[in-house]
């Protein structure tokens, strides 16, 4: 199991800085998800690791070996592309065997390993087929198979699930994680889909504007985001943000005593963040709001409320509320997160 270390990586295209002083360490066998909006530099970062782009500065180590000056073929990595990039003129068998053939692996061993990988990925029936004759999920599997057959040090996945339909995507998430754990190959997975990141990752690195905003386990990122960007980017429905202020030790508009809240410095204006599930609609709640919208998700209703001019969303409601209806709700004050409205930093972080 090989660890991956990135030290102060920088990459600019002309004047546009795409990867900005990124440092990151992956332990052997870890699955790290690079999560961020499109254009944030996550794919460029992956391409830097792969060697498809040259770094401007910084160092990359794979299994203790410095690789940033090496060509892709010498880095002992494997990559799955968004559109699979199968060789259309080769059969599935030849596609799988290609990395071995290039590495001059003997014919018999090649055959054995192709069969083993095909077996593992349920592709044994399709070995003679061409990529064009396969379904999206099967192509995805061939791409995975071609990546793992060489037993690389590092596994790079560039949005491998984004071309699949929703049902298949969920299934492949599990398959990839299971495969990754079974093989124990250190993996970097790039996605813009937070659900994918939360379900698959050992740790997530949230990237924005070429910088790492926060690195942590999915749970840390959700419950204890380092800043406003991470809080807003992770979570569906999105976190509620309410303009708040402190007046005589009271948090307006909630009227909570600030003595119980963990804020380390005085701030007259701040943004209060509250996850939708921390808002409970109940008849004895201490706050009053008007219902402005309803969304039904089968297992729950998500209700949009107008609370003193702020639009907030409550999830987990058990029934539908009429629009315009006035309701009471309570909040889990322990789940409140406070941000500096000017720079988005957490104010209450320990």
């Amino acid at each position, binding site marked *: 199991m090989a660890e991956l270390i990135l030290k102060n990586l920088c990459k600019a295209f002309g004047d546009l800085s795409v990867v900005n002083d990124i440092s990151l360490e992956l332990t052997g066998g870890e699955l790290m998800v690079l999560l961020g909006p499109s254009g944030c530099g996550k794919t460029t970062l992956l391409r830097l690791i792969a*060697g498809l782009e040259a770094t401007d500065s910084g160092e990359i180590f794979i299994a203790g070996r410095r690789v940033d000056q090496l060509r892709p073929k010498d880095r002992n990595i494997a990559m799955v*592309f968004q*559109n699979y990039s199968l060789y259309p*003129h080769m059969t599935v068998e030849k596609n799988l065997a290609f990395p071995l053939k*290039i590495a001059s692996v003997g014919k018999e061993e090649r055959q054995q390993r192709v069969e083993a990988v095909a077996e593992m990925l349920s592709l044994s029936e399709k070995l003679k087929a061409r990529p064009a004759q396969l379904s999206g999920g099967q192509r995805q599997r061939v791409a995975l198979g071609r990546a793992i057959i*060489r037993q690389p040090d590092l596994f790079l996945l560039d949005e491998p699930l984004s071309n699949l339909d929703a049902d298949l995507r969920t299934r492949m998430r599990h398959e990839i994680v299971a495969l990754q754990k079974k093989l124990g190959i250190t993996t970097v997975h790039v996605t813009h889909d937070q659900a994918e990141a939360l379900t698959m990752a050992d740790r997530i690195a949230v990237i924005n504007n070429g910088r790492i905003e926060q690195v942590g386990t999915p749970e840390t990122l959700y419950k204890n985001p380092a800043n406003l960007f991470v809080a807003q980017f992770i979570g569906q429905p999105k976190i509620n943000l309410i303009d708040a202020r402190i007046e005589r030790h009271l948090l307006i508009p909630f009227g909570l005593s600030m003595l119980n809240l963990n804020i380390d410095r005085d701030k007259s204006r701040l943004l209060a963040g509250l996850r939708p599930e921390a808002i409970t609609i109940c008849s004895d709640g201490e706050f009053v709001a008007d219902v402005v919208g309803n969304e039904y998700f089968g297992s729950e209703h998500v209700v949009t409320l107008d609370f003193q001019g702020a639009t907030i969303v409550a999830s987990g409601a058990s029934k539908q509320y009429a629009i315009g209806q006035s309701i009471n709700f309570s909040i889990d004050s322990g789940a409140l997160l406070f941000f500096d409205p000017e720079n988005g930093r957490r104010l209450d972080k320990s």
Partner: protein
Amino acid sequence: MTERIEKQRKPKREAPLIMRQGEIMPWLFILPALIIIIIYIAYPTIYTAFLSLRNADSSAWATAACREGQACWGIFENYRYAITSDTMLRAFRNNILWLVVMVPGVTIGGLLLAVLVDRVKYESVAKALIFMPMAISFVGAAIIWGFVYDYPINPDNPNAPIIGLHNAIIVNFGGRPIPWLSSAPWINNFALIFVGIWINTGFSMTILSAAVKGVPKELLEASRIDGASEWHVFWKILIPMILPTITVVLTTLTIFTLKMFDVIYVMTGGNFETNVIANRMYQEMYVNFEAGRAAAIAIVLLILIIPVLFYNIRSFRQQEAIR
């Protein structure tokens, strides 16, 4: 009862409009094209085939040209000349030489340039320059190269100016000028073929460059990550991916080469053993006034080109199907 039967029969007697359209309408649509093809392609071809069986001025069957005591193929006498005469065999040999040297030369040169220009910043300028010879007429190109290959009238006179570029270079380095266009049969034929390569490389580069650009960049990147060297990427990924286009270029060039005429006509006039089939056809028609022989050569040329043409159309369709 009879009423019902009549009702059932009625549609049989008058087929629905749409079915009657099916018999006539398609023909109406292709009629203009059909008329043009018949007048300008089918009729001349058939008439040429007819002329190839007639004598020099088409006044009698070709049998009339037979001489006592010599071989005679009856009405196919013109074909005996077109296929077995020394002059024609030499033209065939030269055409084969053109095929064997020019077609691979142009294809490999074009492919090399297509791959190389893909990697430079000033790609469009480089491509425009290489494509330029295509824009010059063959006659113009042949005249330009006539100067390049020029041989001084009196090579032993040290004061005579040397116009030919190649000979000027050779003389400058202390060599003796070479009669490029009259050293039969190897130097002059290769000199001519080189002009053909110079003209056509731009064509193959342009087509192959489009094909190279059509190969998804990610496929090449994927193969590099899979451990392939640039050599492997070229042979295992790029070439197989553009193989259909290479086939089209090869066959198109084969047809070009079989029809090659202008360069030879302008530069040597077919002298010094440089004649090819198309030149022979022209000479029979307009120099020797042997219409029958010219027609027979034309038919031989047509028969040689047809299989290549069919293959070309088929691979072009396959290429379209892949897209």
